[in-house]
């Protein structure tokens, strides 16, 4: 039964998955157990994405199903779910750029891989990254950008982190659109990732959790 939900969700069978959740809730099962299964389902989704069995639409769809499940389960919950996290990552699309597709995928993949992700959204000023790093004590920051204007915004952001005296405590990764090694050099970031999985690997490498 428990396995069922994880697999059904991972197979993106929306109706069946919701039906299972409904039944288990009706049977008085612990909501946390259900959410845990759902989380495992999402991990499978992430794996399949890594293996190029799944693509962005599958991530989006699984996210929608998860949302539906959470909405069903929430009213029955007495306490918040606590998941042990591998570490904290701050993510955002840099100033001037409002594209969020790539950033959202990295957030998704970091999340299902066990990281605590602080998503600052799009068009994020350099100072906001700095503030969030201070506030959360995160040691990894991911800068996303789709347009070529992001090259300079990323550089500005890295400079701001440096000016705040955080540069040696924080690893910076960049990615998206036209980002490549040349841009990495230009911005002064520590690494660039060609895709979401690369971002996850970098985070694991820097925060531990790498196999």
């Amino acid at each position: 039964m428990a396995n069922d939900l994880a697999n059904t969700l991972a197979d993106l069978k929306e109706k069946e998955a919701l039906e299972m959740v409904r039944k288990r809730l009706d049977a008085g099962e612990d909501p946390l157990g259900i959410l845990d299964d759902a989380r495992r389902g999402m991990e499978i989704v992430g794996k399949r994405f890594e293996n190029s069995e799944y693509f962005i639409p599958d991530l989006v769809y699984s996210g929608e199903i998860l949302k539906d499940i959470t909405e069903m389960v929430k009213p029955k919950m007495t306490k918040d779910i606590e998941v042990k996290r591998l570490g904290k990552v701050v993510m955002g699309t840099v100033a001037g750029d409002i594209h969020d597709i790539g950033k959202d995928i990295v957030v998704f993949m970091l999340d299902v891989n066990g990281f605590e992700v602080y998503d600052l959204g799009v068009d994020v000023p350099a100072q906001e990254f700095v503030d969030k790093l201070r506030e959360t004590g995160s040691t990894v920051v991911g800068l996303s950008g789709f347009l070529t204007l992001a090259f300079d915004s990323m550089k500005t952001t890295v400079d701001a982190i440096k000016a705040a005296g955080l540069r040696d405590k924080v690893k910076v990764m960049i990615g998206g659109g036209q980002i490549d090694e040349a841009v990495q050099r230009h911005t002064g970031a520590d690494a660039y990732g060609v895709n979401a999985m690369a971002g996850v690997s970098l985070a694991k490498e820097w925060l531990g959790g790498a196999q």
Partner: protein
Amino acid sequence: MTEKSPQQLYDERLKRVNDAIQLKVPDRVPFFPATHLYAAKHVGMTFEEAFYDSQKWSEANKRMILDVDPDLFFSPGFAVFSSGQAFEAVDFKQIKWPGHGVSPDHTHQFVEGEYMMADEYDALLDDPSDYAVRTYMPRIYGTLQPFTMLPPLKAMLFGYAGVGMTALLAMPDIARALESLQKAGLEAAKWSGAMAALDAEMAALGYPSFAGAAVVVPFDLVSDMLRGMRGTMLDMYRQPDKLLATLERVLPMLIGMAVSGSTMSGNPRVFIALHRGADGFMSLKQFETFYWPGMKALILALIDAGLTPCPFFEGCYDQRLEYLNELPKGKILGMFDSTDVFRAKGIIGDTMCICGNMPMSLLQTGTPDEVKDYARKLIDVVGKGGGFIMGCRGVMDECDPKLVKVWADFTREYGG
């Protein structure tokens, strides 16, 4: 040696491009930089000025084109498709433009959104224009919000009762909305006129313009303009039939739009920006079901109409190149972003002319040698036997003028 006339130069450049498109070996590798807003940077004006001052924007482009000396130039009216004044007049919500939502020095950006809701397919399919006027336009133009109060446009058929509809048009809100539309129309007409004049001036100076019309493939229309990326992706699972019916319905609209645009401009090249069909954006099976059929049908229809489709393959198409071989040979100018063009040459090199793929990172942050090295490799590998046009991966908004010059000069010299 006598100087060539502008007409001779024009013909020469066009022949160079056409030879490449027809997969022949041109006299040298044609050069098509997707300059977009680069002219502003080239002459030192803001992007905001480019959106608000047609004269300055035209002059900047003229100077930039004469300096860069391309075989095809990217029309300034293509980059700035209408003026900030026009957008402001209707409070256009779908883009943020320089000085209006984004910095005066940053390019305009599309505001991703669900402009059509999941349960609105039937309304769109049953009466597209009514849907456009009463539902869609009020969402994308702030000033047209009052249109939501209009009765169905079909009401005009209901004799005495339908006639009453005209009274609604007199409501101050509706009247103001119509006024804003008219004002935007006048502004847009002014802008288009100025841009067309620049294109004509450049033609007289010997420079052919890249494309005469722009269009999108059916899936991108729905994904970009209507349902949003997220919405469309969910629709592929939850209501694939309605999505497919809509894709089918919009295809003739898109064909008509491209054909009439080309007829008006007299330029056969049709720009098709491909957005949501790249590797990663959907599975191959989804590509085959939802994306490719409409894309292929559109391209074939344009070729049938005697036009030259110029798809820009945004992102990476490494996994989908084989599909492109279903298209007729020597009729298409394919512009590539991060697709491995060196590999692509071996797969689709006999089908379509490849244009690309100088990295923007190099033109913006690289060294002259890096730029030359990459350009050399492109010419050597992809340019082998013709069928290649030197271009870049995206638009050149932030490129370094010095590096652009290196790139242009090198292409002319080495590509001979």
